[in-house]
């Protein structure tokens, strides 16, 4: 599948190309934008903002808490030793382990959600250019190398337009 993209020097130019691509009938989801820094001030950079990550972190925390409760209470019952006059299942001291594993659950859930939703690790796609790391902004489309796309990309005054 052919990919066509332009490399832009400023986010403003990238935004112009992005808008023209949409006007040319390319759906937002089909337009790829890449940059070496987050550009949330621009419309193209504020896409895909919605995430359920905080809720998954909470779920991870609940799993961590439940696991810690089961680990401490079941194992203490499995080999019952009276320590310092404390009860066999000593809630106060177990709360420390439960707290740590709750937080660990939240952290792991957050990281796994990040990896899953940001599609990491992955191979670099066809629509990628190392010039992005030199400060350029890539705006491109996969599988639609038509004249209208090329004109739209050109309207943003790109440094170069490439096809792959």
């Amino acid at each position, binding site marked *: 599948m052919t990919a066509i993209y332009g490399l832009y*020097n400023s986010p403003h130019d990238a935004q112009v190309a992005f808008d023209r691509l949409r006007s040319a009938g390319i759906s937002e989801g089909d337009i790829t934008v890449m940059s*070496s820094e987050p550009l949330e001030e621009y419309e193209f950079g504020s896409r*895909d903002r919605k995430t359920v*990550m905080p809720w998954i972190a909470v779920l991870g925390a609940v799993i961590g808490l439940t696991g810690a409760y089961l680990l401490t209470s079941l194992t203490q019952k499995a080999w019952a030793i009276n320590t310092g006059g404390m009860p066999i299942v000593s809630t106060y001291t177990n709360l420390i382990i439960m*707290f740590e594993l709750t*937080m660990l659950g939240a952290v792991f859930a*957050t990281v796994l959600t990040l990896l899953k*939703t*940001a599609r990491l690790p992955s191979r670099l796609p066809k629509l990628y250019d190392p010039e*992005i790391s030199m400060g350029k902004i890539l705006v491109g489309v996969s599988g639609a190398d038509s004249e209208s796309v090329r004109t739209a990309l050109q309207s943003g005054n790109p440094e170069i337009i490439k096809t792959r």
Partner: protein
Amino acid sequence: MTPEKSNRLAEDLLRPVLHTSRSFYIAVAIFSAIVLCGVATWGYQIYNGLGVTGDNWPVFWGFHETNFVFWIGISHAGTLISAILRIVNATWRRPVTRCAEVITAFALMIGAMFPLIHLGRPWLAWWLIPYPSERGIWPNYRSPLVWDFFAINTYLTASLLFLILPALPDFALIRDRASGWRKRVYGWLSMGWQGTPKQWHRLESAMHIMALAIIPIAISVHTIVSFDFSMAVVPMWHSTIFGPYFVAGAIFSGIAALIIVMALLRKLLHLEAYLLPLHFQNLGKLLLTMSLLWGYFVFNERLTIWYGNSPHEMNVFWSTQTGKYAPLFWAMVLFNFVIPFPLLTIKRIRSITATVIASIGVVIGMWLERFLIIVPSLSRKSTSYSWGSYTPQWPEIVILCSSFAAMALLYCLFSKFIPIISIWELKVGQHPQIKKAAKVQDAQAAGELV
């Protein structure tokens, strides 16, 4: 930011990664030699037993435990400060955060080594790990040492992730600029980072959530380290103030360590354009706040014990005020309060050099504080027949020195392979809106705006 500016910034910050100077190899060789001496000394201690240390009845905790508490305290510099600054959106944080997070990761690793070093048979340390063994025995979850195991490992795991995740875009930057083996290695490390808006949003969301999680974790870690002492009925240990007192002390020593490291990086890696006097000013103010808080806690702790006048505790109290440990106690007060206070308060003398001098004093003072918490109390237990003394021996001193060399070595190696300042975060700081917000914050900090 124009591509030219962006390139210049990246080139400046990637120079230490892509070019190696001779002084780097010399520094690594020296630090490695000292670390090897420490490892060999540990081997000598394992072979001959703990008798080669100054630990003896009734003082079984000496330098090794002091170092443990000290390094765990130093670890509070990084991730905690970075997380707090991230949450309050302090714009000046950008060049500071990674320098700080690295301290956390390495200080935790070094700190966690000391309970192992202090074990006569370190190969049995895995007994702390909860796993279904054939004997059906599990760790004793009522033991503060098991709490340490869970707390330190949670903090270490979270801190490493907090350090590595925002480095992914910088790895991608190196991948695209490097060639040969570097391209392959950084290609693998960057995990295929592309820089799509979705990836940026997810990364920032993850960092925000982790920052929120890490603050209570960090506080819990040093509280739990304080429980190692306060759960024991030993004079001057069994105190409810120990949790917050340890946390405040840890943040205090952590900020001091961060300032020293930043000053060294600024000088050695020529980062004068990025680590500005403003950063030292702001961290100096935080250090001053923590110095006052530390003084407040020490006064509270001492006054309560003196007023209570319990004979067991007064023995320890007077040994630190006027007795054998008094020189160390008053040196600690000098380093932690008397020297930093004027250096950080008087605006005219609050330069980078003055802030660094104050920080060096604080690091020494906080090591003394850890020693004074541990040794005098064990030397003067409740009954006079269990009194004794402690004199450190050469293996403990060598291992202490090698722990500092290990920190320096790990830091050198890290700054060689990973940009010590987050490049993409610095670029974000140059966005017009954020620059404007930063100017307002700076003006507010300088008292120009109400």
